[in-house]
Each structure stands twice: as structure tokens, then as C-alpha cells.
């Protein structure tokens, strides 16, 4: 039998089995939770741990720092984790595992294949599924005693306070500046401690804000970071375990706050760096700034604002599509370029303007790689390659069709060569329109 066909058949069967497993898990968890609720409610009323809780958390109960008192503090608390991605995945998993009583999850995204290298609460089977639903499944498998509340919604100024009210603590496990300022301001206004972590490429940061007289996010970072469009388009990336480290530490900080240990610590900013020795540095922070816009003595921010406007970018880490080339005749579609490339008589130069790291992942045949930020340095090389064309066209390409437009502007305006076009939608478009086997990343 054709092995490709058999692979498809088996995958389809596995998908059915997984869906069935999901249904059974959901019913089982609901029934077990109901069973446990009865005995848990009784234990709660008597301020004791139930038999199940003692069995499950026994190893923790043996740690003097935690004991039955700490375990009850965890059980009787409710924590909201905003974001179920790279940070939220390990954080939510550990919080549920360790016995936080109520865990709220906020996310509006769906699971994507490219999430799986770091978002370990999700599975391949969950690709395309809502992230909070996928996360709930992961948590209920681990610890049905944890009451999980799913908020499948984009957190914004209209709903943040409503969602956050009723929780004892908020965990910022998001991926963009606008949402971080939103969460911070709402926590200050609702008087909630905020365990905030972040990670990108090979670096991470962790602080507990708005707690015990310490600073809030705005005390430390009153000015939002510059909107670096270049950084987005060059795809900064992140090593899977880096947000994992920070997310785990966030769960640890939650335990410290809920058990009261954090009150004895001075506020600090923890910096993690994969490249540094030592990997961790701790920066001592001051108490809250009396002049802070939101938590200061005379706050100027008393209501939640438009954070996308404040930061200059929306509540996501998506890179926008640029519109730099006004004249559509300066762009070609992927299909049109494919015709040119397939015509062995059509001389041309394909200039790939992505950085070398991306070029190494994949590239179109016969492309010359000169990253856009090296155009000035390598101008001679560029001009030489164009001279050898004898008037034939240059096509520029990048991942999404943004930087390639900049390249066309450079070549037409600075080098004065008008036979220059970019390939709209870039290699992502190529994978959709021309060659589905071309690696998308």
C-alpha cells in the first residue's frame, strides 16, 4: 500500500482517538471534581486538608516552609494568569500542580504549530484550538482539584478590571507592552500584587510589582519601549526553555506571595541571560515612586487608558504589513516571480534581504543574500551584481514582503536602478501561492 496514504489514514485515526480521549477526560474530570468538591468543601469548612489533598501534596507538606498552613493558603487563593504562551504554560502548570485553589486563565489566541517548541501546556493535537481550552485540558489532566476559570477573551480597558476583580493576585505572562501597562494599571487600581515575567531571544526578566510598598511597572518603566518595526520583521525569536525558566520562577513568586514569605523580601528585578555567567543577576529596587503616574501620591492615570496609543503598538506581538511602495507596478506577486524564475531565458537577480540566520533556514534557488541592514556596507558588492545584469531586473524578497520594499526604495532611489521590484508577501506568500513544501517559519 502507498505509505503516504497509510500515514494519512493513521493520522486521521489518531485524531479521532485523541478527540475521544478529550471527551472522556472532560467527563471524568467533571465527575471527579464534583466528588472532590464534596469532601473538599467539608475540609474547607473545617479548615483542614482533605484526604486527597494530603495524598497529592504530601511531598510539599513535608517542606517546613510550606506545611499544611502553606498548602491551605494556596488552596484558598485565586490567581489570574494572563497569557497561556511561553510564560503562562509552565506557570499555570506548576500553580495547578502545587495546589492553587482557583486558577483563572486569559488568552484570546489559538494554538499554532510554531508555539509548541516553548508552550508546553499545549499539544500538537490542540493546534487550531483556543489556547485557554487547550490549557484547561492540560491542567485538568494534571490536577482536577484545581478550579480553572477560562477567559477566552482579549484583555483590554473595557474588561480588565471586571475580569481581574475577585482574584488575589495577577500573573503577567503576556507578550506585548500595551497589555503589560494595562495589567499594571488595573492591578494598581484594584490593589492586587502583580507577578510579571518576560522573555525574548535569550533573555528574561521577573519582578513582583505593586506589593508591600514596592514599585509598579510604571515606576520602573514610565516610558514604553520604542516601536522597533525592524526587530519584529527580523523575527527576534526565543529559545524554548528561556520563557520556561521565567514562567517557573513566576510560579515560585506566586507561592512566596500567597504564603507570606515575599513580605520579608525587598523588591528586586531578576534578570536572566542565557549568555551570561552567572545566568541570573538581581537588581535592588526602591519603593514605589511618589511621582509615579499611576501609583504615586498624585496619580494622573486614574482610569484605564488606550494602551495601544500609549505604546504605539497593539496588544499583540504581530508585525504589521508595511505599505512603503505606493506604485503597484514596483511589486510582483509570487506567481509572477515564479514565471520569471521558471523561464531559463529570463535573466534576473533574486536578492534575498533577510539576515543570514533566516537565509540559513531556507531560501529560493539562485538567490543572493545581502541583508538590508548591510546595504550601505556592501554597496559595492550590490552595485557590481546589478552592473552584471546589463539592464535585467532585480527582484527583492524577504520573509513577509516588508523589508523587500525598503530594498526596492534603496536600489531605485540611492543606486538609481529602476528595474527593481519586490516580491509581495515574500516567502510566506511563496509557500501559500506557489510551493506548499517550502518551509514556512
Amino acid at each position: 500500500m502507498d505509505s503516504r496514504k497509510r500515514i494519512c489514514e493513521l493520522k486521521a485515526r489518531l485524531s479521532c482517538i485523541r478527540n475521544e480521549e478529550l471527551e472522556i477526560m472532560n467527563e471524568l474530570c467533571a465527575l471527579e471534581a464534583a466528588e472532590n468538591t464534596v469532601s473538599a468543601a467539608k475540609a474547607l469548612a473545617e479548615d483542614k486538608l482533605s484526604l486527597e489533598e494530603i495524598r497529592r501534596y504530601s511531598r510539599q507538606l513535608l517542606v517546613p516552609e510550606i506545611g499544611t498552613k502553606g498548602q491551605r493558603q494556596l488552596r484558598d487563593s485565586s490567581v489570574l494568569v494572563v497569557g497561556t504562551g511561553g510564560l503562562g504554560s509552565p506557570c499555570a502548570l506548576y500553580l495547578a500542580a502545587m495546589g492553587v485553589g482557583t486558577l483563572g486563565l486569559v488568552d484570546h489566541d489559538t494554538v499554532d504549530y510554531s508555539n509548541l517548541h516553548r508552550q508546553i501546556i499545549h499539544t500538537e493535537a490542540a493546534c487550531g484550538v483556543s489556547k485557554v481550552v487547550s490549557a484547561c485540558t492540560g491542567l485538568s489532566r494534571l490536577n482536577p482539584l484545581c478550579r480553572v476559570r477560562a477567559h477566552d477573551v482579549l484583555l483590554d480597558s473595557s474588561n480588565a478590571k471586571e475580569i481581574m476583580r475577585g482574584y488575589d493576585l495577577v500573573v503577567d505572562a503576556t507578550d506585548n507592552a500595551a497589555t503589560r501597562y494595562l495589567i499594571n494599571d488595573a492591578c494598581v487600581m484594584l490593589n492586587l500584587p502583580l507577578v510579571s515575567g518576560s522573555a525574548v531571544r535569550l533573555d528574561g526578566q521577573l519582578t513582583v510589582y505593586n506589593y508591600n510598598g514596592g514599585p509598579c511597572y510604571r515606576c520602573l518603566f514610565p516610558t514604553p519601549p520604542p516601536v522597533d518595526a525592524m526587530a519584529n520583521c527580523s523575527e527576534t525569536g526565543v529559545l524554548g526553555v528561556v520563557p520556561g525558566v521565567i514562567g517557573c520562577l513566576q510560579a515560585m513568586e506566586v507561592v512566596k506571595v500567597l504564603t507570606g514569605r515575599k513580605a520579608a523580601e525587598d523588591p528586586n528585578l531578576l534578570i536572566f541571560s542565557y549568555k551570561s555567567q552567572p545566568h541570573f543577576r538581581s537588581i535592588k529596587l526602591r519603593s514605589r515612586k511618589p511621582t509615579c503616574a499611576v501609583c504615586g501620591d498624585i496619580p494622573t492615570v486614574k482610569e484605564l487608558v488606550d494602551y495601544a496609543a500609549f505604546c504605539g503598538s497593539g496588544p499583540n506581538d504581530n508585525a504589521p504589513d508595511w505599505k512603503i511602495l505606493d506604485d503597484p507596478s514596483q511589486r510582483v506577486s509570487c506567481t509572477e516571480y515564479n514565471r520569471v524564475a521558471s523561464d531559463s531565458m529570463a535573466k534576473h537577480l533574486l536578492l534575498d534581504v533577510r539576515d543570514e540566520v533566516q537565509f540559513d533556514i531556507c531560501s529560493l534557488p539562485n538567490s543572493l543574500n545581502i541583508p538590508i541592514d548591510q546595504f550601505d556596507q556592501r554597496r559595492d558588492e550590490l552595485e557590481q551584481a546589478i552592473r552584471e545584469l546589463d539592464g535585467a531586473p532585480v527582484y527583492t524578497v524577504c520573509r513577509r514582503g516588508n523589508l523587500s520594499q525598503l530594498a526596492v526604495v534603496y536600489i531605485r532611489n540611492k543606486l538609481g536602478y529602476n528595474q527593481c521590484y519586490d516580491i509581495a508577501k515574500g516567502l510566506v506568500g511563496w509557500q501559500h501561492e506557489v510551493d506548499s513544501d517550502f518551509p514556512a517559519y
Partner: protein
Amino acid sequence: MVEFKILYFATARDAALDKSSETLEVDDGRPATLASAVECITAKYPKMRAVLESAMVALNEDYCDKDNMSNIKLKSSDTVAIIPPVSGG
């Protein structure tokens, strides 16, 4: 002449052409302050100016008020850190 170490994190490292740390010196006749150290850094890496608008500055792993940098004395072997906010996750 005051020699000091600087640590660059995240986008500050990018602006410092991928260096995580280095040693620089301030030697302009005036008493060295955190402000003069920062001037020294931005003179070497112009892109650091934009980074510093939103970054935190620490001296010997202690948070510093950016509005007060010209009043903070710099000694030899002090360590300055430039810590931009990381937003990703």
C-alpha cells in the same frame, strides 16, 4: 580617570553591537558621575540613546533614578547596567 564596567541587556546589547559587557573610562577633568558614564556610552553607541529613553539604569545592581544621574558619583570599578524593558513572552 575613572574606569567603569557596563552590562548591556536585551536591546541595549543590540545597540552595543552585541556586546554583553565592557569596560570604558571617563576622563574629562570633571568629577565622574553616572551621567558622564551614560554620555560616554551614547557617544560610542549612538543607537543607545533611543534605548535609554525607556531603559532602567542600575549602578552596582542598585536601581538609579534617571532624573538624578548627574548627582550620582561614579567610582573606579563601579558597574553600570542598562536594562531595557522586555515585553515578550
